[in-house]
């Protein structure tokens, strides 16, 4: 048993499984030979997430948990918490506070089981020179690396999935592998995505990430509290993105980036609750959203609490 069998979902396709798949296509007679193969075909024929009933989802989740346990040698819980009725998540980012420390970036990576090699980040922090035009983003610097932040003469703008109300990525996906949940979070079914990357071309915010190689992450770094549509371990060849930490927020917690921010620049809450922090920000600050001309209607609001 080589590396192939570790990931049964058919992502580690080596020559053998590839030929097997080809044989199935050609002859239609290839039969599973052992238990692992049975699981391979189960993964292969897994239905679209939204077409499965609860019992089917439960079975899939059991299979995934077994797979992950084999691969990471530890128990990993794959949750399937549904959207809470009456909740529409919104995010606020106070640009006047952000110091560009990137703690949010790494808190996100710690929480969401991204690949560490090659590195996958869901949050990009852009640095701009004060006094220069900045809204076209072309003047931004993504790879700034100073001794100390904040740097005089610069300001910072973190960008992540804007959870658009009118998401261009969802419209683009040819297989309906990505969709907007009732609480406004745009999610991806990593077992349905074919990896065509049309959503990445469609996203105006550079928020979507592709697993160009097999995601690598040591077992001790794996966060075992996961969600099917969120931070469960991903496969090679599929797209992933920020989900507002769906595994946390649907259980009443803050996203990891909100908790990690040392200056309180990040706000999060229910847009439908008039007493929420995010509603307060929207109603009392001058907010703007990124690339508003594209009518994507992000639920990610930038604002300036005070002037610096």
């Amino acid at each position: 048993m080589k590396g192939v069998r570790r990931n049964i979902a058919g992502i580690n396709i080596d020559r053998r499984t590839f030929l097997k798949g080809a044989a199935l296509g050609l002859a239609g007679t290839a039969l599973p030979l052992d238990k692992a193969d049975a699981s391979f075909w189960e993964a292969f024929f897994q239905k679209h997430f939204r077409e499965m009933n609860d019992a089917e989802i439960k079975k899939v989740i059991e299979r995934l948990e077994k797979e992950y346990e084999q691969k990471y040698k530890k128990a990993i819980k794959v949750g399937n918490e549904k959207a809470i009725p009456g909740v529409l998540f919104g995010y606020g980012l106070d640009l006047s506070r952000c110091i560009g420390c990137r703690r949010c970036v790494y808190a996100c990576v710690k929480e969401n089981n991204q690949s560490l090699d090659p590195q996958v980040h869901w949050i990009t922090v852009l640095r701009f020179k004060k006094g220069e035009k900045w809204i076209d983003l072309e003047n931004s610097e993504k790879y700034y690396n100073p001794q100390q932040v904040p740097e005089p003469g610069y300001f910072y703008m973190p960008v992540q999935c804007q959870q658009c109300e009118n998401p261009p990525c969802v419209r683009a996906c040819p297989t309906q592998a990505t969709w907007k949940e009732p609480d406004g979070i745009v999610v991806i079914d990593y077992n349905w995505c074919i990896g065509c990357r049309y959503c990445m071309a469609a996203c105006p915010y550079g928020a979507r990430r592709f697993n160009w190689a097999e995601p690598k992450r040591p077992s001790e770094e794996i966060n075992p509290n996961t969600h099917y549509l969120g931070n469960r371990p991903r496969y090679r060849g599929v797209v992933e993105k920020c989900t507002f930490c769906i595994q946390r927020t649907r259980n009443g917690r803050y996203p990891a980036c909100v908790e990690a921010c040392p200056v309180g620049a990040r706000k999060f809450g229910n847009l439908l609750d008039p007493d929420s922090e995010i509603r307060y920000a929207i109603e009392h600050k001058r907010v703007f959203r990124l690339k508003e001309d594209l009518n994507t209607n992000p639920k990610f609001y930038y604002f300036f609490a005070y002037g610096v």
Partner: protein
Amino acid sequence: MAAIIRIIKNFFIALREITIGNKKYYCWLAFLSFFVLLGLSAYVDQLNRGLIATAMRDQVSWGLYISNFTFLVGVAAAAVYLVIPAYVYNFKPIKEIALFGEMLAITAITMCILFIIVDLGQPTRVWHILPVIGAMNFPSSLLAWDVVVLNGYLILNTLIVFYTLYRFSIGKEYKWSVIWPLIIISIPWAVSIHTVTAFLYNGLPSRPFWNASILAPRFLASAFCSGPAIMLIIFQVIRKLSDVEIENRAIFKIAELVAYAMGINLFLLGAEVFKEFYSGSIHTYPIRYLYFGLHGKASLVPWIWAATIMNITAFLLFLSPKTRENFVTLNIGCALIIMGVYIEKGMGLVVPGFVPDTLGEIYEYTPTMQEIVITMGIWAAGAMLYTVLLKFAVPVYTGKLRFGLRGKRVVASDIMTRKVITVTPDVPVDDIEKILIYKNISGIPVVDKDNKVVGVVSESDVIFREMGEISHAGQKAEDLIPHGLTLTAADVMTSPAITANEHTPLEDLNRIIADNKIKRLVIVDGEKHPVGIVSRIDIVRTLKNIKEEQ
């Protein structure tokens, strides 16, 4: 039922043709197989390592594969450039070869599908894109539209090609009532495949470089240059290597149409360039990156300028009848167009859509060797498919392979070679010699200005002249030369020609050939217009075909 089994059986008999060929044919297939296998092994490695084997990254998430896909959709759509003059305007020289254009469309679409497959992160899940068994996002996703139109176009062209060949194989022309609806659908459908592919890009407001309404017309215009340019070269190869007759008139007509398309293409490109540079908004970074580079990063700059120069040069070459009707300049023009358009709407279109990326980063994409090898593998596979399609179709097309003769009263029209090469009486014998040699035939009917058969020039007529023997005209050849006259067909032909009509039965054909000690018979219609030739080898072949059908 029995009829279907017979058709399938005959299909396999015809299929056997692809395994039979001369040394050149086998060498060509071996050459292509080498690249196919090389590409396949590179692809297996890409499957093992993931798409990290390519130079694509999150910033530039599409590259060489999708560039080739875009170019080839255009090649496929260009079949319509033959179909319209052939079927709608009934331009005979092109009508006879539209089949080869439709076969090119089949090949190009197959290559498109391969380029999509190698670009997928999860190729085994490709069925998710299908309706019913998958979850096709139709009509919302333009990629889903593309799946529909491309596969529909593939099916349409396959139907047209195989139906036509089936009719030819039983010695008949296609039924207009069957072919007409297919053609009528295929014309707008061809336009749709390239329009939808353009919409795939220009429907994305996130990418200002693509988000231009001029993109679909530009795609079509450049497709109508590159597709026909490829066909022009293929046609010359076909008529050189097989006994398929393709008239110069057809080739020059297509070249003329290419000139118009290139003119429109350059105009549309100019309109785009003007709007971008003159308006000078922040959305012009990609085009500036393409033509001049940004922040010292300029990997596409030499390519796009080369493509621009190639396209303009080719346009000028094709514009003048003098250069487009000269095979040297014509072929140079074709090569320039193919390369120019390949760059312009391949990498020159796809990559600037991503540079700078949506957050302003400039990532320079240069394909890896692996991407290049896989790409070459798919091109070789396409060339192989087209070769095999030709090998299968040509004997049926020329009437060498014919079915349905067994147990039937065989007449001339069942077995004759239909594409008749003729000469007029004033054609010099030197030229006739060339035709005999290069076309590998043994005789040519001579027709007058009303296309009525007046005689035949055979190999022996030419031999008699060369050997100084008495020709059939009853004059010694040398007698004519001192008068400073060039010998022409009229001087050496056997006249009147021995002819038969389309309904003459096989036994009578045999008898006429034997009685007159000739090798071939010109088959004429009621007005003495030549419609075919039955030579001895046609009869031998017929007997063999009948035997094989058992």
